[in-house]
Structure formats: C-alpha cells, structure tokens
C-alpha cells in the first residue's frame, strides 16, 4: 500500500481516471433506457461503491485502517430511515440529517481513535463500533432485530416522487457522482498530498511541520460523512435500516471491497463495491459458503494479489487508475 511510485498528479481531463469515471457515469445514466439490468442491483452497488471509496480515503490515502466503518454506514441508514418514518421529513432533509449525524459521530470517534496509531487504531475503531452496535441493539428507535422498515421515500424537494424507480435511480447516481467528485477533489488538493505523506511516513510528515493529528482527524470526519451518505442512500434504496449494517462483519466487508478493487486507486473501490453487490446478489444461494468465499478472497488478495484488480491493471498500463 505504501510502495506506490509517487508521481505528482494533477487532475486533468486527460487523466485516465477522469475518462473512465465519466464513461462509467454515462453508461450508468443510460442503463435504465436499455432496460436489461435490474436497477435496484445497480443502486445497491452504487451505495457500496461510495462506501468503499469513502473508506479508501482513509486506508488507501492516509494509511489509517479503520475496522469500524460500519458504524458510519449503519448510522447514516438509521438516521435517514428514522427521519423519514418518524419525523416524516422530506427525503432531502433525511439525507442531510444522516450526513450531519455521521459527521458528528465521525468527529467524536476520530478524536478518540487517532490518539493511537497502527493496529491500536484498528482495534480502537473496531471496539467503538461494537459499542455503538450494542447501543443500537438496545435503543428503542432502531427496533432492535427488526430494524426500521416500511416507510415511504417521499418526494424530493416536493417535486420528484422517489417511489418511482427511475427517479430514485437518478438521485442515487447523482449522489454517487457528487460523492466521488468530492473525493477526487480531496485527493488532488494540498490536503490530500499531506494525507498521502502521512500514509507513507507519518514521522517524516511531522518533521516537516505538519500537525498530522489534525489532518488525520479531518480525513476521518470526511470519510465518516461520506460513508454515512452511502448508508443513507442504501436506506432510501432498500427502505430498511437494520443491525446488519452496523455489525462488524460490514466493517470487514468494506475492507474486502477496497482490497479486491485495489487500495490507493480511485476506481478500485468502485469496482470492489460492484463486485461485492454482485456477490450478495448472485452468491446468496450459497448460504454460509459466501463467508468462506470472502475469507478466501481476502487471503488470496493479501498473499498473491496485493494491488487488487484495478491496482494490477494500473501497474500493467503504467497509469494511475
């Protein structure tokens, strides 16, 4: 993860990442017109992909391996669902509330977790996520094992009826697009360069005068907010928010997505999210074998395939992807 050749990167329209990402968005925008792909599958994949990209902001760029990112994904979903069902606010406010809640949560968790480095950071985030899992398990608003379900998606800005599949589809695609534009903007900013420096050698970044704790905290909050947005999107799509999205296995799943696609790449987490959604969709008949398959993919990626799919491709093409 730290062995990537560093080249000064400038976001330009000739960047392959830009071309491929734009192409992906265009294809996805045209998919409903073709009518041969199940739109709910794509929507779920887009949620996972944004979640993975948000997570990759930490692990791939700042070198922070959070093992508790499900807490942001799940919280985003819970707040969005609760706002729609109980507060009966329109969907745009539900998403905004979810975003605010996860940003605050990200700040609290981040300030605690970044006090430790390396594996202690991983264990701390995992433990805090588990604490939140128990809180959600016990608090009445989440309805425990049942989860929050059976709510209407409502009308966006009072105009667009999100219960119509394709209206929802384009909203999700738009949020996916905006989230990734923000991530690209962060990566290519001076802030992103400092994060990269911290990821590669934190002590050296400190010796250059950067207050690394502050940078890591901000990266953590941004990543948490984007993960929360992805969770809110998933709640909108599936019309449920449940404990499984806050469980530690979801934190493992997002790591799997990023590792499969390739850390340090921009497109890798997106591919990872799509692959993961496909695994959920098509391998669910295998039952518990899915977990075995996930573990095997983990081991295979780590032992033989550390760059991930996109990372390997990028190395082959000698391009940043």
């Amino acid at each position, binding site marked *: 993860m730290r062995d990537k050749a560093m080249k000064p990167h400038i976001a330009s329209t000739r960047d392959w990442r830009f071309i491929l990402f734009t192409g992906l968005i265009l294809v996805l925008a045209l998919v409903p017109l073709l009518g041969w792909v199940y739109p709910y599958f794509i929507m779920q994949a887009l949620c996972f992909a944004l979640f993975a990209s948000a997570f990759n902001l930490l692990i791939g760029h700042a070198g922070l391996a959070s093992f508790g990112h499900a807490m942001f994904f799940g919280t985003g979903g819970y707040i969005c669902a609760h706002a729609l069902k109980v507060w009966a606010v329109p969907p745009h406010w539900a998403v905004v509330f979810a975003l605010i809640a996860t940003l605050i949560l990200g700040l609290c968790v981040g300030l605690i977790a970044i006090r430790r480095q390396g594996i*202690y950071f991983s264990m*701390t985030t995992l433990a805090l996520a588990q604490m939140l899992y128990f809180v959600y398990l016990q608090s009445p608003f989440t309805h425990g094992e049942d989860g929050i379900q059976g709510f209407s998606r409502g009308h966006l800005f009072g105009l667009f009826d999100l219960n119509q599949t394709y209206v929802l589809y384009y909203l999700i695609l738009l949020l996916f697009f905006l989230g990734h534009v923000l991530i690209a903007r962060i990566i290519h900013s001076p802030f992103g360069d400092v994060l990269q420096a911290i990821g590669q050698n934190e002590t050296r970044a400190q010796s250059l005068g950067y207050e690394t704790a502050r940078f890591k905290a901000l990266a953590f909050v941004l990543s948490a907010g984007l993960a929360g947005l992805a969770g809110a999107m998933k709640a909108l799509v599936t019309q449920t928010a449940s404990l499984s999205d806050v469980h530690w296995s979801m934190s493992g799943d997002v790591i799997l997505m990023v590792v499969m696609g390739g850390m340090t790449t921009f497109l890798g987490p997106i591919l990872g999210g799509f692959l993961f959604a496909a695994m959920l969709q098509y391998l669910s008949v295998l039952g518990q074998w899915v977990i075995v398959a996930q*573990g095997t993919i983990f081991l295979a990626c780590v032992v033989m395939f550390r760059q991930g799919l996109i990372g390997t491709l990028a190395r082959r093409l000698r391009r940043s992807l």
Partner: protein
Amino acid sequence: MQALYSQLLIGLINGSFYALLSLGLSLIFGLLNIVNFAHGAFFMLGAFAAPLLLEHLGIGYWGSLLIVPPVLALGGMVLQRIVLRPLQELDHLYGLLATFGFALIVQGLMQIGFGSAGLPYAIPSALQGGQNLGFMLLPNYRGFVILVSLAVCASVYLLVERTRLGALLRAATENAERLSSFGINVPRLVTLSYGLGVGLAALAGLLAAPMLQVRPLMGADLMIVVFAVVVIGGMGSILGSIVTGYSLGVIEGLTRYFYPEASNTILFVLMALVLAVRPNGLFGRREA
C-alpha cells in the same frame, strides 16, 4: 448480596478468558507486530474440539485438555509459517488482513458444518457440584477455570521473565535484527511465539466449552471485547495484560450487578476514557 457475589464470580471467569486471550495477543504482537484477528477463531476451535473429540474419538475432557492446545498451536505455527511469514516484511496491515481472512474461512466452515446454534458439552464429572463458601456456592468447574487460568498466566509470566527462552523472546521483541546477529534463529522464535499465543487461545476455548455455548461465532464476539481490553492495558507488558484482563472482567461483572443496561458497553466506554487520558494504555510503553 448473593447476586453480587455471583456476578463477581462471572466477572472473574470472564476476566480469566480476557487474560488468557490478551496474553496470547500480546505475545504474538511482540514478535510479529500484528494483531492476530484469527485469535477468536482458534478460541472457537478449541471450544469445538471438546465435544467433537468426545463424540468421534471418545476422548474425554482431560484428554482434550492435553491434546487440543498443542495440536492447535501446531496448526497456528503452520499458518504462521505458510501465510504470515512471507508478509512479515510488508506493511503490517497485510498480516492483519490475512488473519482476518483466515478467521472468516474457519468461521464460515464451522457454520456450514454445525449451524449457528452450536453444540452442548457437559462439565466433566469430577468437577460437577460445588463448594459452599459460607457466603455463596462456588460451582467446582468455575473455581477450576479460575485456578487453571491463574496458573497458566503465572507460568507464562515466569517463562517470559525468568527463563532463557523468555529472555530470547524479550530480546526479539526489543530488537530482532540485533538478536539474529548473535546467531539466534529469530524466525523460529517468531513461529514459536505465534504457536504459544494460539495454544493459549485454544486452552481458553476448551475451558469455556462446558460453560459458554459452543458456537461458531463465540470467538469473534469475544475477541472484540478482548481488543478493547488490550487497548486499555496496552500490549507492552505480560503482567499488564494479566492484571488488566482480570480487573476488567470484575469491573464488567460489577456493572452487570449495579447497572445491567451498561454491561455490554462499559469496557468500550472505559477504553475511550483511557485513550483520552493515557493514549498508550495503562501499561503501555511505546507506540507501535
């Protein structure tokens, strides 16, 4: 009062498991610099071994106690040798992910084989019944678990602090490169300490088998609590792991008596507090 004592007892029992597991994690961390996410899987395998050996080979509790920890320790050493050693030179994240993947595979296979509900396992006949201590009834098996774990913790402490092998282990933790320049086979020490840690996890699982439900996810759920214990105590010292393990178990037990709603979360709250005040943990020395 009776309820308080029994919660204290449960706390001590849980503390025994925390101590054994965090001790193993500390040993492994000291030499491999990774968190062994497969620890919970080995704990679970240790627990499953008891009813399986009984059913298929007719080996009872005492036989299992002799066989299971060494066999699983050997398995752990094979895992370390084949999977983890090639990753040693890389970012420690990869070692951690590899153990996580291994844990997923083992848990998944056990869920396929035995379902999520789990297997029953009876307390060995010699340890059934209990002692009346005057103020409470102490079930024999629970007393046995506490005694065994205390004895094992003490022996590991003596092994690491008082023997030549322990001195080598400490030296390898301190500076592996310099130690190998003295002609010591450090990779073998690393494998050995992984095996030792795994053996402790398997022993803890075996001790837990007659008390907790033997089910595939028993280790994973317990390990997250143990991670909090490890963050609170710091993985710097052996004694620190032991003391933190037992005392946090007791604190958890007390919470279950005085404020049961918080019993699931108390250790995580403590962890957050300790991180705010003493980022390196109570017994931690230097940053990883």
